[in-house]
Structures are given as C-alpha cells and as structure tokens.
C-alpha cells in the first residue's frame, strides 16, 4: 500500500480509507471509538461531515473534542475536552451495556467473511507457539451493544482470512439469525472500510460482499487481497475521492498529533 501521496492522485490509499471511514459517521449521534484507525476516522468526522458527533472513549470520556489525534485512549486531551469523565465500570455498564451508544467503531487484526473479529491469538503453524495479539479490550461488548458497528482496517490476505484462529468478537457469527439467537441488541457490523474499498454484509447471507471500490482500485485487486472467495455486489460503486477540505483536515489532525509536539 502506498504510504506517500502519488503523483497522479495527490492522496494515499490510507487517506482514501480514512476519509471514507469518516464519511460513514455522517449520520451518527454517538460513537464508541477504538484506538488507531477508528480514532482517526472519528476525529476526522468531527472536523468534516459531523461536527456534533459525540466521541466516547473507553478510558471514560464522553464528548471528547481533541484538536489533534490522540496517541492513546487515555490521552490527556480526551479528558480535558470531554463533556464528562466517568469511571470505566460506569462506561461499560451504564452507557455501553445500557444501549446508549449509536455506533461502535472497531479495528481488527483478523476478520472473516461474516465480520467476526480476532484480536487474541494467531496460529503460526505446526510446532510454533501461537502468536500473541493484544486481546479483546472493549470490542466484544462494543460489537454486541452498540446500535451498529463500523470497521476500518487495511486490506490484505493476512487480515481478511478464510477462517479465524480465534473468535474474540462476534460479528454475524455463521450467518443471519446468529446475533438474534444470542440475544445481541445491536445490528452488528454494517460496513468494513479498507484502503481498497468498502464491504457490506449481504442481508440474505450476512456475508461481506464488495459494494464499493476506491478510485483507481480494481475488483481483481480486492479479490487478491481477500483470503476467501469474495462475492462482489451486482453494482459496485466507486467512492468519491477526498475533497481538498477533507484532505486538509486529515493532514492537519495528523500533523498536530505528531508526538514531538505532544510531549512536555
């Protein structure tokens, strides 16, 4: 994936992903924000398509309005700019489990065709110890209790796998009805935004299908980067390229978040 702006387009594949992830929050009221790419998207959404979006971080901040990208979920500016700072048990019990959060925005180490997530361990083959990932964090209950779930991650066969080594967080299980059977209140994953395009679950099968490509990306490229035989929607849209305003806002957030400026 290109990390620097290309001469022909003036933006990177990461920027395409981040801008499209931010646009997905245009209608959201409240967003439970995961660290990393989801945090970039949510903060960009506040700076562009949804200035009133309420950002909620699991460290206990409700309504954070940072002026730069936080380096961690406990960044001081998240607390300093919040409408309220609450305890972690209150966050998970009253606000998340209480069904008061609209959108959960998650990243993932591995995702399968039903948008189930693994962030726990990966199998590295016979005679090798399983590879250690950070663990579940807030994701299992975010995916269960938020009204709906958006996901953002870079697209490769390492991430988009045929079979998860471990199910940390349920997306759509093994198909339609699984979430309902488990009594999960939220709708689960509704879109997976990558640096190549957008996947959405087919309402009939709950399987992720390719519904949009970023400008300049081909269906073949996405197929090659997906670890299962990817279904492609009858009509595949092309996402709009980032506007100059979106790009400027994204780059300003990132530049302001440079660690050298954050430290004492």
């Amino acid at each position, binding site marked *: 994936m290109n990390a620097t702006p290309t001469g022909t387009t003036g933006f990177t594949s990461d920027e395409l992903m981040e801008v499209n992830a931010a646009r997905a929050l245009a209608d959201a009221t409240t967003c439970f924000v995961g660290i990393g790419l989801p945090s970039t998207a949510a903060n960009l959404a506040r700076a562009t398509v949804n200035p009133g979006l309420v950002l909620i971080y699991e460290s206990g901040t409700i309504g954070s309005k940072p002026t730069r990208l936080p380096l961690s979920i*406990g960044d001081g500016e998240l607390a300093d700019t919040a409408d309220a700072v609450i305890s972690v048990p209150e966050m998970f019990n009253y606000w998340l489990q209480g069904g008061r959060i609209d959108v959960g925005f998650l990243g993932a180490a591995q995702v399968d065709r039903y948008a189930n997530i693994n962030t726990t361990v990966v199998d590295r083959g016979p005679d090798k110890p399983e590879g250690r990932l950070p663990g579940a*964090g*807030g994701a299992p*209950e975010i995916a269960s209790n938020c009204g709906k779930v958006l996901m953002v991650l870079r697209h490769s066969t390492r991430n988009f796998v045929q079979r998860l080594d471990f199910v*940390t967080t349920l997306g759509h299980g093994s198909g339609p009805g699984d979430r309902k059977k488990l009594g999960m209140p939220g709708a689960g994953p509704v879109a997976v935004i990558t640096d190549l395009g957008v996947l959405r679950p087919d309402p009939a099968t709950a399987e992720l299908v390719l519904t949009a490509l970023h400008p300049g990306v081909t269906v073949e490229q996405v197929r090659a980067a997906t670890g299962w035989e990817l279904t492609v929607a009858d009509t595949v849209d092309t996402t709009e390229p980032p506007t100059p305003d979106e790009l400027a806002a994204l780059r300003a957030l990132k530049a302001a978040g440079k*660690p050298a400026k954050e*430290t004492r």
Partner: protein
Amino acid sequence: MADIRSLQDAVADLVHDGDTLAMEGFTHLIPYAAAHEVIRQGITDLTLVRMTPDVIYDQLIGAGLVRKLVFSWGGNPGVGSLHRLRDAVENGWPRPLELDEHSHAGMANRYVAGASKLPFAVLRGYRGSDIPTRTDTVSTVVCPFTGEELAAVAALNPDVTVIHAQQADRAGNVQLWGLTGVQKEAALAAERVLVTVEEIVEELTPRPGGIVLPTWVIDAVSVVPGGAHPSYAAGYSTRDNTFYQAWDPIARDREAFTQWIDENVRTTEGALTR
C-alpha cells in the same frame, strides 16, 4: 488508617512473593515508581492483574517476576505490541507466563464484584466469543426473574492494589481526578492498598469528578512526585509519549531490555526521574 511512609518501606511491607498484585491506571496515573521498587526488591512469583497492562507490566514480566497475568488488553497504547509480554507467552522467556484473559467489560465487573465483596458479577457479555473457552473465571448464570442467560465473572480480590494519585492530606486521605478508570474498584477490592501521590497537602480541595479514598481504606501512602512517569498525573504532568515510542526497540531485544532495567531501575535509588 494509612501510614505515610517511604516507598521502599511500604512496598517491602505490603507486597510479598506470590501475591496477586493489581497496579491499576487507565493510561493515566499508572504507578510506575512503585512497580520499579517491586523490581528493585525482586519480589517474585506475582500474579499481576490489570485491565490494560502496558509498559510497566512489560518491565515486570521481562524482569522475571511474574508467573501469571490477568488482563483484558495488553499493548503499548498508540505504539504497538508489548514485546516482553509476547516473548514470555510465546517463548517462555525469562519464564513461562500463564494468562487469564477477559474483555474490558468483564474485568471491570470482576473488580466491581471484588469491591462489593460479592462472589461474582453479572453482565450481558462474552456472547459469541471464544474467550470463555480459555478461562475458568467466566461462566453463565440464569436470571431468576426473566430466565435470561447472562455471563458471570468471578470476583477479583487482589492481595495488594497499588495506585498513583495526585494528593493526600496528612491523615492519609487521598484524592485523584481526571481519568479515574477502575482504580477505586481495584483499591476497594484489595486486601491491602498502597497509594503513591504527587504531594501531601494540608487540606484536600474537592475536584469535579474527583474520587476520595478515605484513609481508613488505605494501608500506606508514599509521596513520589512524578511517580506515574512516563504516564501522567492530570494537573501535574503530561504523558511522555516519546518514552512509550522509545520503549518499543528496547523491549524488542532481550539484551537491550535487561541492560535498560539494570541501568534505569535495578541500580537506581528511588523513583526513576526523567
């Protein structure tokens, strides 16, 4: 009632080999200086508990003092993996590390049950997740009123909880504010409690959203200005993000790690200064 005493004495008195030890702090107010004192004193065979083990737990694990970790997310926030944690889990260096793994919601509720002196807590959690297959501290319970099956998580009652706070008064009452995470629950769940503070003040001034832990629920208070570095204490310091990034290459290499611990923790006296 809390005694106000030196960090060295408080750690020696309150933390013992084989203890279950929680050093909480949700990115903010992490008790680094106390953990370094544990490393200097070589207190070992610990079961470490924390929702978000970060760099300080990486240091304790790499120093070979830990036999088990109870947690829900282990990483260097905003930077990447904890390499000492990974090396211990994947390769058994410097010793094998047993894991008891949960979700954040589960861990938070385990502390709530511990603080409430209940045997377990109930949540609508872990549904569809493989996590319960690898731990014996998650089970299910049927609601006696509705018949709904819910997750049950075993109470966490650490032998010792250590937290860092902004202020204490001379009687040993403690106040912390900003992101207060799960520190109150972790303290109230524990048998013994040590709080390191930025300073002693004549009188605690109530802060919006602040938490006061009265002296009678604390065993010892130690004054350690900067004791949360490289994390931070709102009102006193900012997070040293450069340190968190600098930790990554140090922790990747066993020798570099050992040298760092020897030079910056084992052979120093008192808190690590920046």
